[in-house]
C-alpha cells in the first residue's frame, strides 16, 4: 500500500488506546497509519461472532471508564457508539438470599438496610468518601505524571499542581487520602461496614484484573479505579455498549478514518526500526518496511521493548525496569451462548438486578481464599465471578429468545503449577466456573449452547496482552503515577527519540478508559509544538 503523502506517525496496535491516540493526532492534522496484527481492530474491546449469530464481547465486557471528554471530542455517538446504562446488579448469597444493587442511592441504601441498619447509615459516609477520592483523582487521569526526580519547569509545575490539589483537600482529608491509597480493600471496608455481604459486594472491584487479594494493601485504590467511571453524571458512564464492546473501537475507527487516518489490519509489526537513537518506522512480519518519524506503541511495555525492539537501542537500566514491571495474568473469561434466560431462585422474579452484573461471592474470606489458590499456581476452586447477560438489554447481540452471558473470572493463573495449559485443563477450568454458576441457577447448564473459555494464556495469544493481564500491568502502588510504567519514563516518551507509548501500561492504567491514548497524543503534539 503506497501513501500519497509521507506518513507523520505510525501507531502499533489498534486497541482502544491506539485508536484514541490516532484520532487526536489525525484531528491535529497529522497523517497517521494504524497497524493491527489481527484481521479485525479493537484489541481487547471487540465484538465477535464465534458461534452462529451470537455476538460476544469476548474480552472487556462493560463500558464504564471511557472518559466522557473523549466520547465528546471524538464524536463517538455520531459514529455509532450508544451506551445503555445498567439497571442494577446483585450479589447472591450461599444460603439463598441476595443483596440487590441499584444506581439510585436511596434505593440502594434501603436495600443495604435489609442486611444491616448500621451499614445503611455507613453507606452515606462510604459513598461520600469514595466520591471525594474520585473527584480528587479524576483530573489527574488526563494529565501527564511529573518526574519527581527532575528539576525541569514542567515537572516542578506538575508537582506543584499535585501538591496544590492535595493541599486543597484540607488536613483531615489529606490523611484520609494517604491512607486510602495504601490500604487494603478489606481494611477500608471494615472501617464502614459490618455485614459480610455488603463488604463482599464492594470488595469485588478491588480484585478484578489484579493479582492481589482483598486483604493486600493497595487494593482500596483498585476498588476506586473501577469506580472512576460512575462519578461523571454523563448517562451510561457505567453500562453496556450496544452491539458489544466492539462498538467502541468501531466508532473510534470510524471517527479516525473520517479525519483522514488509515488502518491496516492483518499487518503484524515485527520490529520497530531505530537509527541513531531515533525511531524511523516499523518492519512488518512479511518484511515490508513502513517509514515514519513518529512511532507510537499501543502494546504493553514488555511487548514493545523486549519483543519489538533491539536491546542495543535501549538504556540498560530502562530495560531492567521493563523486565521488572509486573504484568501478571490473574483473570479468565467465559462467553456463553444460552438457549434462554437462566433462572436465579435467589433473585425475585422481575427484579432489575439480573439486568446488571451478578456475583456469587458473599464473603471477603472467599475472595482471599480464591487468591490463595492463584498464588499457588492453580485457578480458584471457588472463583470470584462477575457475570452479565447483555442480551437482555441489547437483543441485537443474539437470535430471538436466546441470550449471551459474559462471565469474568478471578483468579486464573497464566502459568499453572502443574505444567502448561492444554485443552483438558482449559475445560476443567471452564467446568469450575460453570458449576459455580449452576449452584445458583438450576437450569443454567441445560441452557448452554456454546461456551468460549479464555484463560490468561489464550488472552495473551489472541489479544497480545502479556500474560493476559487486562491492565497491561498491575495497578499496585509501585506501578502508578510517576512509576508507571518505568520510573523516569512515565511521560509517554520512550528512551528513543520519536517513539511514544500509549497503552494501558502507562498512566493512568487499564480499563476501557482511553486516557493513556489521549495523554500520549497530547505529549506527541506538545513535542511537535502543536496545541492539543
Amino acid at each position: 500500500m503506497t501513501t500519497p503523502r509521507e506518513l507523520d506517525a505510525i501507531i502499533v496496535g489498534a486497541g482502544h488506546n491506539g485508536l484514541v491516540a490516532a484520532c487526536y493526532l489525525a484531528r491535529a492534522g497529522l497523517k497517521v497509519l494504524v497497524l493491527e496484527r489481527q484481521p479485525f481492530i479493537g484489541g481487547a474491546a471487540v465484538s465477535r461472532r464465534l458461534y452462529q449469530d451470537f455476538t460476544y464481547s469476548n474480552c472487556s465486557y462493560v463500558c464504564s471508564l471511557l472518559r466522557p471528554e473523549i466520547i465528546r471530542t471524538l464524536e463517538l455517538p455520531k459514529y455509532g457508539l450508544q451506551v445503555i446504562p445498567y439497571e442494577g446488579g446483585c450479589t447472591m448469597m450461599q444460603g439463598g438470599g441476595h443483596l440487590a444493587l441499584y444506581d439510585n442511592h436511596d434505593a440502594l441504601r434501603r436495600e443495604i438496610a435489609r442486611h444491616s441498619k448500621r451499614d445503611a447509615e455507613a453507606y452515606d459516609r462510604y459513598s461520600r468518601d469514595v466520591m471525594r477520592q474520585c473527584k480528587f483523582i479524576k483530573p489527574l487521569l488526563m494529565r501527564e505524571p511529573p518526574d519527581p526526580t527532575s528539576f525541569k519547569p514542567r515537572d516542578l509545575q506538575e508537582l506543584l499542581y499535585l501538591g496544590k490539589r492535595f493541599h486543597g483537600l484540607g488536613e483531615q482529608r489529606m490523611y484520609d487520602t494517604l491512607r486510602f491509597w495504601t490500604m487494603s480493600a478489606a481494611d477500608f471496608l471494615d472501617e464502614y461496614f459490618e455485614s459480610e455481604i455488603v463488604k463482599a459486594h464492594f470488595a469485588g472491584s478491588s480484585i478484578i484484573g489484579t493479582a492481589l487479594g482483598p486483604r493486600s494493601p493497595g487494593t482500596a485504590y483498585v476498588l476506586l479505579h473501577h469506580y472512576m467511571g460512575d462519578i461523571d453524571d454523563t448517562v451510561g458512564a457505567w453500562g453496556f455498549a450496544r452491539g458489544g464492546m466492539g462498538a467502541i473501537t468501531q466508532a473510534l475507527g470510524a471517527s479516525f478514518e473520517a479525519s483522514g487516518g488509515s488502518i491496516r489490519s492483518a499487518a503484524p509489526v515485527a520490529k520497530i526500526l531505530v537509527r541513531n537513537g531515533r525511531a524511523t518506522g516499523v518492519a512488518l512480519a512479511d518484511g515490508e518496511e513502513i517509514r515514519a518519524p513518529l512511532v507510537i506503541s499501543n502494546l504493553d511495555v514488555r511487548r514493545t521493548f523486549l519483543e519489538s525492539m533491539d536491546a542495543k537501542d535501549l538504556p540498560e537500566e530502562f530495560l531492567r525496569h521493563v523486565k521488572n514491571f509486573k504484568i501478571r495474568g490473574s483473570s479468565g473469561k467465559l462467553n456463553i451462548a444460552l438457549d434462554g434466560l437462566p433462572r436465579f431462585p435467589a433473585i425475585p422474579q422481575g427484579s432489575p438486578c439480573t439486568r446488571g452484573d451478578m456475583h456469587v461471592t458473599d464473603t471477603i474470606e472467599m475472595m482471599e481464599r480464591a487468591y490463595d489458590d492463584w498464588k499457588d499456581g492453580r485457578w480458584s476452586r471457588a472463583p470470584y465471578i462477575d457475570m452479565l447477560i447483555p442480551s437482555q438489554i441489547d437483543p441485537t447481540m443474539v437470535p430471538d429468545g436466546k441470550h449471551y452471558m459474559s462471565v469474568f473470572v478471578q483468579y486464573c493463573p497464566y502459568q499453572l503449577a502443574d505444567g502448561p495449559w492444554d485443552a483438558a485443563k482449559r475445560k476443567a477450568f471452564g467446568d469450575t466456573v460453570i458449576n459455580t454458576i449452576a449452584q445458583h441457577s438450576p437450569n443454567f447448564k441445560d441452557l448452554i449452547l456454546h461456551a468460549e473459555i479464555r484463560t490468561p494464556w489464550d488472552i495473551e495469544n489472541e489479544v497480545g496482552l502479556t500474560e493476559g493481564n487486562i491492565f497491561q500491568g498491575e495497578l499496585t502502588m509501585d506501578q502508578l503515577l510517576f512509576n508507571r510504567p518505568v520510573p523516569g519514563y512515565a511521560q509517554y516518551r520512550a528512551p528513543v527519540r520519536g517513539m511514544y507509548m500509549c497503552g494501558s501500561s502507562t498512566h493512568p492504567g487499564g480499563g476501557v478508559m482511553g486516557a493513556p491514548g489521549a495523554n500520549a497524543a497530547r505529549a506527541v503534539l506538545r513535542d511537535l509544538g502543536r496545541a492539543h
Partner: protein
Amino acid sequence: MAIASPAARYDSVIIGGGHNGLVCAATLARGGRSVLVLEAAAQVGGAALTREFTPGFRVSAGAHLLHLMPADLLRELNLEAHGLEWAAQGMATTALVPGGGRLSLGAEEAGRSLTPEDAAAYSIYTARMRRLAAALVPMFSRVPPRLGTTGWADRIALLRLGWQVRKLGRRDMRELLRIVGMNVYDLLEENFDSTALKGALGLDAVLGANFGPRSPGTVLTLLYRLSGESAAGASGLSQPKGGLGAFCDALAKAAAALGATIRTGTPVASIRIEGDRAVGVVLESGESIDAGSVISSADPKTTFLRLLGPRHLDTGFVRRVNHIRSQGLAAKLHLALNRRPEFSGVSDSSLRGRLLIAPSLQHIEHAYNHAKYGEFSAAPVMEITVPTANDPSLAPAGQHVLSAIVQYAPYALKEGWQSGRQRCIDAAVDALEGYAPGLRSCIVGAELVTPADMQAQFGMSGGHWHHGDLAFDQFFMVRPVPGAAQYRTPVDGLFLCGAGCHPGGGVMGIAGRNAAQEVLKVSLNSP
C-alpha cells in the same frame, strides 16, 4: 525503687514503665522536669523483661534481642554505668536450610555459600538497601509534621524530608520511590535465585507484621527495620547479660539517677480531666496524683478508650482509634532444655547468633495464609536464639534455654487458645525438630506466650508488639491516628510516648525520646 510521697505534684506523670516510658522519663528528667513513672507490674520493662518460665530457667519473655535502639540514645543514657553488660554483640544470623544445610547471612560467609551471581547481587542489594535505609533514619528521630497547616515548622519538616530523599541522587531516589510500595517477595525475586536467601531476607520484612511476603508494604517494613539497625550502628544484634529485663533495670536506674521517680506495682485506673485538660491520674488503689502533663506509654486504644474514655473525645477521633489494627500475629516460644540443642550443620559460634526458619518465601506465605483465617501456621516460621549460649546465668549449669518468635499465631485464634495452645507448641517443636533432630527429647519445660497472653500480661491491646501494625496507613504522620501523630493528643496535657506512635515498636526507645522532646517544648507555667 524510691517511693514518692502521695502529696507530691509532678511536672509529668508517665503511665507505664516499659522501655519507651523509661526513656521518656530519663529525657524529661535530664530536661529538668520532675517525673513520676507508674508501672502496673511488679518490675519495670513492660514486654521487655526477664522472667522464670520453668524452675531455674529464665528468659526474655517478650523481645529477646536488642538491635534497634539508636547508638546516640544508648550513649546519652550511659547504661553501662548503671549495670548494663552485654552477653553478646554483633550477633550473626544463620538461615537453617532443610536437609541439614545452613546459610550464613554475614557478607563474606554468604558469598561462599551462594552462586557467584547471587553473591554479587547480594552485595549490591545490601549496599543499596543500606543507603536507602540510612536516608530514612533522620525521619525516625523527628516529630512527624502535620499536613495542610500553615505552620512553618511543619512545612520545613516536609521539605527536609523531601530533601533527604532527593539527596540520594536520581538513581537511588527512583529506586526508593519504586520499591517502597512494593512487596518483599517481588523485590527479592527481582534480585536473587537462592530460595534459602530469599526466605531468610523475607522473614525480617514480616517478623512481627500482619503481612506475608507477597503483601505490598513489606518493603516498607523491611526498610523500617534496616533504618532502625542503621541508627543503632555497629553493635548490630545484641543480647544484654541477664536478658532484656536487666537492660530495662539499667534503664530505670539511669532514669532514677537523672531524678525520675519510679513506682512499680501501681496500676493506673484512669486519667483525670479538669476543664478539658489532663491534670493527673487516679490509681486503681484510689490514690490520685496531680501532674502538669500525663504521658502514656500504653497503646493508643488502652490510653484513649480505657484510661481516658471516649466521652472526652469527638466521635471521628474515637472511630479512628477503634480502627487501629493492633492484633498481634507473633507468639514467643520458650523451651527449657536439659542439654545444648544441636542444629544439624550449625556451628557453636552460629548457635550464639540468630537462627531463622524460613526456608522459602512460599513457605512464609503459606504460614501467613493460616493467620488470615484465624488459624496458627501449620508450619510456622521462626526467629530462634539460644540465650544461654551467650549467658549461662539464665539456666542451671549445662542446661539451656531456647527462645523463639513463632509466626503466625493470631491474637483471635478461631478455635481459642485454650485448646490451640498445646497444638501450636507442638507445631513449633515439630518445625524445630526438623532442623534439630532429638530436640524434643531434651525439653524439660515449655511456654508459649501468645498475643492474647501478651495482652493479658503486658496490657497491650491485641498483644501487638508494635502497638499497631506497621503499614503505610498506620505509619509516620498517620500513626497511631491523625490528630495524635505528633505525640500530642486532642486533650491538652495528655501525650503519647509508646510504640503506637511514630516510629513504632521494637525495643527502640525513639518514640519515648521524641515524645519527651515534645513535652519539653510546652512551658511549665502554661495553663
